[in-house]
């Protein structure tokens, strides 16, 4: 079974600075998808960024970028120029590529990010 581990329950960053959230996963699959979701206090899960395992290039979305290390099974999220609105719980998630048994997301435990003004 696939597992996702986020070893940092809490992180904090000063406004305008850069922070990196860590995620590792365990799978025997060679093709899969990885995601970072943001969950603010309103509880609405919002997709931040997505990475296809077959792509070597790291995904970027404006101030958000990932460092995908397939051999190490590591998938970290870097937030540049942090803003107060970035404060939220961040979840790393995995989804297998083969769809024979559904397309569930397997989530990590989450990292609570605080942005200090």
């Amino acid at each position, binding site marked *: 079974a696939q597992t996702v581990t986020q070893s940092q329950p809490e992180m904090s960053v000063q406004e305008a600075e850069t922070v990196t959230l860590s995620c590792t996963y365990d799978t025997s699959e060679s093709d899969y998808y990885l995601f970072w979701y943001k969950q603010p206090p309103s509880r609405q*899960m919002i997709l931040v960024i*997505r990475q296809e395992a077959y792509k070597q290039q790291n995904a970027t979305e404006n101030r958000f970028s990932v460092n995908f290390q397939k051999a190490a099974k590591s998938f970290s999220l870097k937030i540049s120029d942090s803003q107060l609105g970035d404060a939220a719980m961040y979840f790393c*998630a995995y989804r297998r590529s083969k769809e024979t048994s559904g*397309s569930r997301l397997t989530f990590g435990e989450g990292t609570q990010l605080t942005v200090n003004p």
Partner: protein
Amino acid sequence: EAGVAQSPRYKIIEKRQSVAFWCNPISGHATLYWYQQILGQGPKLLIQFQNNGVVDDSQLPKDRFSAERLKGVDSTLKIQPAKLEDSAVYLCASSPEWTGQTQYFGPGTRLLVL
């Protein structure tokens, strides 16, 4: 484009009572998911529908939980009877593709079982 709608937003019940949650996915989305998120944890899939058929319900406690998606649009999730450990946020998500690459989440229903 309207997002995923869920109701109610909050529900408080006593153990052994029954409760039902409703989800309306984004228009045209064929795939619908119900996740359970216990406080301090990441969401866990309970059931996945493709149109009105069940694709994955391997983690659904079938002795007390049931779900349906009539006509392949709205869905209801029911718990009968509820236990204290069912206290959680129940998230509904939908996806336009069978592969579910991008799942769009609703605001969730927070359930407290006393």
